[in-house]
C-alpha cells in the first residue's frame, strides 16, 4: 500500500488531483472493441485533504497485462482452477463468464477460444483450455509447492493416473444432477427418470473406485499430500452435493478425505468460490435463476442429449 501523501487543503479541485489514487483514467476500448475490466487493488480510501470524493484506486487492466482466467463458478473445473490460483497467491484477472446467462462478452471470448470453453487461460498471447492443462501450467510457471504436482517420477505418475480416470469416469457424470434438477427444467426439458437412475449407478461405481483404488488407505487421492488430483475430484463431487445428493453419507473414508482437503484449502476461500453453486438450488426453488437466453439453448440441449 503506497503511503498517503499529505497535501495542503484545497490544493486541487475534485477530479484533477494528480495522485494516482484519485486519477480516473479514460476508459479505453481494448483491441477487440470491448472495454477492459479494471482491477480494484485496494480498499476505497478518501483523501480528505485534497478531493472531497472517496478515492478508489483504479488501474487500467492494460497496465497489469498478465494472466487472465475465464471462469464460470457454476463449473467444477473452473472452481478447481480458481481455488488453486488463489490458494497459491497467483495474481490474475478474473473474467467471469456466465455461460448459461449468455452474459460473457461473446465476440471477444469467441475470438480467443473458438470452442467457447471454460475454464480458459490467457497469458499474454498464449491461450490455453482444459482445466488439468491449466493447473499444470500454473503450477509450473508459478513454481507452486511440490505436493501440488510432484516432481518425483512415480508420485507425478499417480496424479496423471487419477486425472486420466477422472476424465473418463468423473467428468460428465457428476455434473448430471445439476442438469436434471436445475438446468434442464430452466428450458422446459424433463430428463427421464431412467437416466437419473442410470447416472446414480455410474456415480456409485465411480465413488467406489475413488475410495478403494485411488484413496485406499492414503490421505489423499494421489498420495500422502494434497495435489491437483484432490482439487479436481473435490469440486466435481461437490456439484451433486449442491443440489442435495449427499454422496458422502455412508462413505466415512471419503467424508474424512473431503474434510482433510477442505481444512487444507481453508473455509473462507471455499465459501467465496462456491457461493454461486451452493445457492443455485435455493434460487431455482424460488424461481430466481434467470432464464437462459435463446442463443444458449442449442448447446444446453446438446449437453442434455449427452446424458446417457
Amino acid at each position, binding site marked *: 500500500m503506497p503511503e498517503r501523501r499529505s497535501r495542503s487543503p484545497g490544493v486541487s479541485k475534485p477530479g484533477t488531483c494528480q495522485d494516482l489514487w484519485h486519477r480516473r483514467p479514460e476508459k479505453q476500448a481494448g483491441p477487440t472493441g470491448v472495454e477492459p475490466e479494471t482491477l480494484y487493488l485496494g480498499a476505497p480510501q478518501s483523501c480528505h485533504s485534497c478531493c472531497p470524493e472517496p478515492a478508489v484506486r483504479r488501474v487500467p487492466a492494460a497496465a497489469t497485462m498478465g494472466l487472465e482466467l475465464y471462469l464460470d463458478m457454476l463449473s467444477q473445473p473452473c472452481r478447481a482452477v480458481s481455488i488453486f490460483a488463489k490458494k497459491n497467491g497467483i495474481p490474475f484477472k478474473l473474467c467471469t463468464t456466465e455461460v448459461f446467462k449468455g452474459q460473457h462478452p461473446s465476440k471477444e471470448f469467441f475470438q480467443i477460444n*473458438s*470452442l467457447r470453453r471454460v475454464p480458459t487461460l490467457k497469458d499474454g498471447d*498464449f491461450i*490455453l*483450455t*482444459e*482445466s*488439468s*492443462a*491449466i493447473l*499444470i*501450467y500454473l503450477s*509450473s*510457471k508459478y513454481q507452486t509447492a511440490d505436493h501440488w504436482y510432484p516432481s518425483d*517420477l*512415480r508420485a*507425478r*505418475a*499417480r496424479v*496423471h*493416473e487419477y*486425472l*486420466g*480416470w477422472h*476424465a*473418463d469416469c468423473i*467428468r*460428465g457424470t457428476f455434473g448430471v444432477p445439476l442438469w436434471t434438477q436445475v438446468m434442464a427444467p430452466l428450458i422446459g426439458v424433463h430428463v427421464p427418470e431412467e437416466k437419473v437412475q442410470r447416472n446414480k449407478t455410474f456415480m456409485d461405481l465411480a465413488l467406489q*473406485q475413488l475410495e*478403494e*483404488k485411488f484413496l485406499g488407505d492414503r490421505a489423499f487421492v494421489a498420495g500422502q499430500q494434497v495435489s491437483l488430483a484432490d482439487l479436481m475430484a473435490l469440486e466435481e463431487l461437490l456439484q451433486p452435493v449442491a443440489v442435495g445428493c449427499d454422496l458422502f453419507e455412508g462413505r466415512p473414508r471419503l467424508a474424512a478425505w473431503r474434510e482433510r482437503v477442505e481444512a487444507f484449502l481453508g473455509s473462507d476461500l471455499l465459501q467465496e468460490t462456491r457461493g454461486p453453486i451452493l445457492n443455485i438450488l435455493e434460487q431455482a426453488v424460488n424461481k430466481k435463476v434467470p432464464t437462459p437466453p435463446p442463443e444458449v439453448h442449442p448447446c444446453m440441449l446438446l449437453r442434455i442429449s449427452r446424458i*446417457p
Partner: protein
Amino acid sequence: MPLELFLDLYSPPCRAIYIFARKNGIPFELRSVELGRGEHLKPEFLKVNPLGKVPALKDGDFLLAESVAILLYLSRKYHAAAHWYPPELQACARVDEYLAWQHTAVQLPATNVYLCKSLLPYFSGQSVDPVRLDRLLGKLKPALQHLDREVLAAKPFLATEQLSLADLMAFTELMQPTAVGCDVFQDWPRLAAWRARVEAALGPELVRDAHRLVLQPRDPRDAQRDPKLAQELVQRLLERLS
C-alpha cells in the same frame, strides 16, 4: 524384473503405448490381455489394475494404469526425445491440453463408431445399423472438423511443430474406426496429410505391426463360441450406443 506392459492391441491407447515403447527402444515384456475373452475382468489381471482396464504397466513393484500416465512415465523414465513431451512450458501445455481434451472429444466418439461398425455386428451376428452408424459418425465430426480446420491449419502436428504424444494418441484413436472400414480421414484433407506424416515419422512397418489385429476382419462365428457372453455384450453395447 523387466518392465511389463499389459496390452490388447485391439485397443487404441494400448497401441499408442506399444508403438511408443518400440519406437524408443524401451525393453519390455508384452503381457497380452484379450478383452474379447474377458481377460481384463479376471482376478489375475485385477491384481495389476483393479479398474479392470488396459493398458496397465508393472515396473518392479510399481503398478500404473491410464494410458496418458503410462506414456508420460515411460517418456520421462527412459529419456525419450524432447519432442514427444517438450520441456518448454507452453509447448508442454499444448500437449497436456490435447491429451485432456481427447478423452471425451475423440476417444469416446471414435470408439463408439468402432463398436457400432465392428464389435456389435461381431457379437450379434447382425449387419451394421446404418442409421445408428450415421448418428455416431456425426458425433465424431466436430472433433475432426476442429482438428482439420483449426488445429492443423496452424501447424503440422496437433500440439507443436513436431510429432508428440498428442499425435500418437490421436493417430491410434482415429485408426480404430478407419481400420474397420469407416475412413474418418476421407473428408478432411489436412487430417489425411497429417496421418501420412505421423505414419512416416513412426515408421510404416511399426504402424502396420501394431495395427495387425484391428485390421483383420472378425468372424462372427468366433463370437458364438460363448453365446451367453455374446448376448450379454450385445446388451451392454446397445445400451452404450443408444
